[in-house]
């Protein structure tokens, strides 16, 4: 038993555990539970009961997602498991740690997920710039294959399973699961319409589950230590642990595995060591670049999907980006808008043509050329690019910091226009 099932093996001062070391540390116990006679339906039931939610950002219940794969005894129907390891959300640095630090945990999680949906083949869609993770995972896959943990009849279950490690070439939109599928098929990574969902028509039109790295890393613990243990971790309606991170002007920025329900203050002031001298916390994005700003008054909120949701923001990736009092909020939002505008895939109109307009306005504000009319245009775009308007969630994600920022920092926006320059410069 452990209270850090995701990171107990991770020590960044040394390399990742080899397969032998990982097994010695109790690894592949979850996979062995399968070998001991767990049926796919049993695993599904356990994962459902565990209350595990996807850690990629949307927080969708994992077991429920899996259950949408059409039930069929026909093993000739190819199913795929795809790992979304295209970590590229601004301010997010959690999956990197898992993949570099303990790749066998991911592989074990993949084995469990693949067995549950009877996917004989998996693809890890890894961000192209993550060379260290690539080396770490490739080595682990080779070890697992050599030990018969991957390949034919794994763990004597009669189940064949192998993994292909695919590295991308830099595109945020590939983190959108259907865009990711198009990229894996060698196509332009435009998202696909949903429905049909990937569980029905996914990779090469076959039933496919796409899960985030951290989500899968939760599975070995659930199988090894049980649902009860898992639910004992965390509070406030969310179970298990989560990687929480802090970046910005804190004394010890970093990423830590903590139970759900820990307060924001504890993370920022405790683990993060509090603000650096001379800097005060002005606001923060609680879960990466696509979340609404929260302010110091929210510091005592517990970190759960529900609690953060009730504040009008989202827990999302759980990696907080702190805005301090010496940094221009308009500049920070502008930086995010430049990112989103550039990373728009170009498929749907509001995102493709709306975000560049927003981006340009921020550049104008920054250089003192902005107008109050421009600020009105920004406000209009918050609604225009919002949820349900666009083809996927990229532009709605952009409206989270934009909309909340326009509300919170109205004075700063106005000062950029009236002073015809950035007041922080």
């Amino acid at each position, binding site marked *: 038993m452990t209270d850090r099932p995701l990171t107990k093996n991770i020590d960044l001062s040394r390399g990742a555990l080899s397969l032998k070391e990982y097994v010695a540390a109790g690894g592949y116990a979850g996979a062995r539970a399968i070998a001991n006679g767990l049926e796919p339906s049993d695993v599904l039931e356990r994962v459902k009961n565990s209350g595990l939610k996807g850690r990629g950002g949307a927080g969708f219940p994992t077991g429920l997602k899996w259950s949408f794969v059409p039930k069929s005894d026909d093993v000739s129907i190819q199913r795929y498991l795809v790992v979304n390891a295209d970590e590229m959300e601004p301010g997010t640095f959690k999956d990197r740690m898992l993949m570099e630090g303990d790749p066998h945990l991911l592989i074990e999680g993949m084995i469990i997920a693949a067995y549950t949906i009877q996917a004989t083949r998996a693809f890890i869609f890894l961000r192209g710039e993550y060379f260290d993770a690539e080396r770490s995972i490739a080595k682990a896959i080779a070890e697992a294959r050599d030990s018969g943990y991957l390949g034919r009849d794994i763990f004597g279950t009669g189940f064949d399973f192998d993994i292909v490690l695919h590295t991308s070439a830099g595109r945020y939109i590939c983190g959108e699961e259907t865009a990711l599928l198009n990229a894996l098929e060698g196509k332009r990574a435009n998202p696909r319409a949903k429905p*049909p969902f990937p569980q029905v028509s996914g990779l090469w039109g076959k039933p496919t589950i796409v899960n985030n790295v951290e989500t899968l890393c939760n599975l070995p613990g659930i199988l090894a230590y049980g649902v009860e243990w898992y639910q004992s971790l965390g509070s406030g309606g969310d179970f298990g642990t989560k990687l929480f991170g802090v970046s910005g002007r804190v004394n010890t920025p970093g990423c830590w595995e903590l139970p759900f329900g820990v307060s924001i203050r504890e993370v920022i002031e405790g683990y993060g060591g509090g603000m650096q001298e001379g800097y005060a916390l002005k606001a923060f994005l609680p879960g990466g670049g696509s979340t609404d700003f929260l302010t110091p008054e929210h510091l005592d909120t517990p970190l759960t999907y529900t609690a953060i949701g009730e504040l009008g923001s989202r827990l999302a990736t759980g990696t907080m980006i702190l805005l301090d009092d010496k940094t221009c909020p308009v500049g920070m939002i502008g930086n995010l808008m430049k990112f989103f505008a550039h990373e728009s895939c170009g498929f749907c*109109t509001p995102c493709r*043509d709306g975000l*560049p307009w927003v981006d340009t306005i921020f550049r104008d504000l920054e250089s003192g050329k902005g107008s109050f009319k421009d600020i009105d245009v920004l406000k209009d775009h918050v609604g225009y690019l919002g949820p349900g308007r666009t083809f996927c969630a990229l532009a709605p994600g952009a409206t989270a910091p934009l909309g909340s920022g326009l509300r919170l920092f109205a004075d700063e926006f106005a000062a950029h226009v009236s002073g015809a320059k950035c007041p922080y410069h």
Partner: protein
Amino acid sequence: MAKITVDGVVYEVDPANNLLQECLSQGLDLPYFCWHPSLGSVGACRQCAVIQYRDAEDTQGTLVMSCMTPVTDGGIYSLAAEQASDFRADVIESLMTSHPHDCPVCEEGGECHLQDMTQMSGHNYRRFDKQKVTHRNQNLGPFINHEMNRCITCYRCVRFYDDYAGGTDLSAQASHHHTYFGRFEEGTLESEFSGNLVEVCPTGVFTDKPFSAQYTRKWDLQTAPSICNGCSVGCNITPGERYGTLRRVVNRYHNEINGYFLCDRGRFGAHYVNSESRLRSARDASGMSVSTTAIEERISEFTSEAVIGIGSPRASNEANFALRSFVGAENYFSGHSDAEHEALQVLIECLRDAAFHSPSVRQIEQADAILVLGEDVTNTAPRIALALRQSVRNEAKALAETSRIPNWQDAAVRELAQESLSPLAVFACGSTRLDDIATTKLNADQQTLIEASNALSERLAGRSPAYSQQTLGTTMQSVEATYTALMSAKKPLVICGTGAGAALMRCAANIARALSVSRSEVCDLVLLPKEDNSVGHALLTSKENTLSRALGRLANGEVKRAIVIENDLFERAPTALVKNALAAAELLVIDQIETPTQRYAALSIPSATFNECEVTKVNYEGRAQLSFQVGEGCDAAKPIERWLNVEGSAHSNSMIARCAAEASDFESLIDCLPDPLGRIAGLKVPRQSHRYSGRTAMHADRNVHEGKQPVDDNSVMSFSMEGMLTQKDSSVLASAWAPRWNSNQAISKFQAEINGELKQGHPGVHLIKRSLNGQAYEAENSVNKNLGDFEIRLVSHIFGSDTLSSHSPAIQKRLCDAYLALNKEDALELGLANGDFVSLGGAEDSIILPLIVRTQTPSGVALVYTGSSALGASINPHDLPESASLARVESEPSVHPTGLGLSNLVVNDAYSGAH
């Protein structure tokens, strides 16, 4: 049917469709860009947003994209809700941010879907004051202009060009707001359907290049409903005319034939009517011009002794019928080559046969297993090839149905089905342009094709076929695969054409008959003739009256006079035979263009082109269609029937009536004429739009007095803007226009439902009654060929293998030299490489052609493309031996190179490497 409520009004709709389509079917104005009636939905543009309410209690509603929303029974929606209309205004504002607003100089102006939608969506005040994104344009060849700055990134172009038409050289590139639609490198768009980009693009990114060069605004064009004369499909077109010249051709919707799309031969080939090749005045043998009175006198006395009339597959029913009644049926001869004439007899027998059904293009799209025998359909009847590209997607649609994905979810269906195709077997000699979607390809010489066909018929008849030793392997596999596919299909289809020859056509008929017998149902059989009125001409000609008989009677002096209409006999029979016959005769030639036949004519007389007269033609199905006069063209030209001045020829209606009354099989031709009740208050239907401008001034360079508009006594249409546009008879609907809808998308206002029939039904009548209970043809015999000789097979090209279109200046830029093709191994054995000259037969006067290596050419076969007569650079296909020995020679080829070389050739199997 489902009932939905839209803005408080209840509508009955088809639940199989999406909300946008159903709203448009109901005549509602809802703006859209990326959705297209033939391309389905992808949800990219977000312009068609509406509000969907959960139930009657729901006052808030949810914003949804109507194109991505299935209609559900009891559904409640609003188009007018502020939330929806505001969002639509935002979308159009976004789309227009980088648009250049160059409408005054844009070819699309006035018929621009983007203009219409901008107005409809209520974007009239521009807030965007930042820098626009700009792009570099590409030279996309002689047909299409490229102006990327106008692009609104709706993705329709690539969805049509690649997904729908199977093109491979246009793609979406880059991303975010730099997304670009173009080729990898500058160069001519390769697809035979590239011209549709002009109509598919909702704005002016892709425009018609030949039209640009002689541009006229849409509303200043005089138009009339017309029929394409590019091949035997009979696509409905709308030519536009101004100042007496044809300016452009656009698609005219016909839900059973061309739908929304044309091929490039049809769209750009029609410009031959303005070309230098037009025969613009009558002249005698010495080249002196002859007055109209003199011609009329000469013609009227021409029957003082026996006259042979040689008809034409590119002349109308009325012209051919007039010639037949002028010379007498016994003296009226086929203008087809003997081989084509024989093949057409098979075609007509099959059209009469109750075992078969000749499917429309729309019905071809519904076939779920197809055999194409011996025909490269893309190069002979291109619109049907485009239909076949849809047929093979029926497998994808069936898969989607089982996964409960609606068919209109275009991207989702493709993502699900990936490369799954309905079976398409292509049995042909050499590569065809449908090979990329063929699930079975038998690539073989004529002998093997016949053998395979016979085997397939046997197999379908429940007998076990005999295979020869050489062909056992691949042939048997192909036959077996095709057998299984055809037998397990819901709607099997067999396609062959006269280009494949009578022998293979009989084989195709046998296969279809065997299918029909074993499945106890009528079988779809398409037999494609080469030209636009091949069937009409063949129906008017007696079986015995072959061209060679006519030539023989002239050569031996039995008959001394001949009239040839719209035909170059040097394309129909061996040169020596034609020369002998023509040299011995006193010859009248009536034609639209100048041809080598006219060198032998005592009198060459100009005839009216397709856009200068009102006539009927019969397509491959036996469907007769009426084509209206568009405008006044060449002053000296008249329709042939009027030159011949036969009874009834003064009026096209009476000529059609007479043809219907007198020619067997033509009884129902009379039904082609527009319904007199279709006209409002008896008014004529104007050919000019209500915005037609400049009428008082357009001839002021010749006469400052405004001339009287030409009167058309001949037609229900007038050369005028006065009158009433038809709402009642779709056969006289040339240009669709509706309030707020100035682009071609206005057609939805005239359709009973989207993609359905036009509200007043479709023009065209099937002439032939299927009353024959035919028999299987005798199994075909083998082909004779000397050992070591190469079998010579002709290949067709969409640009160049058709007489009239080859005179179009735009098409001429796409032509290539005559060539002979061998596969790599045969070429190597003969010591030949690309560009070498090859002699056929090795005799002194033998034909010499440049070689191109085409890797898919069956071994022992030489494919020959005979070049284009329009450039004076063709060989007479009838001078070619059936087989010949080949040798490399240093002497010049038989036809002078056009300077175009082979660089325009678009084939799937060109070999560019060295040996």
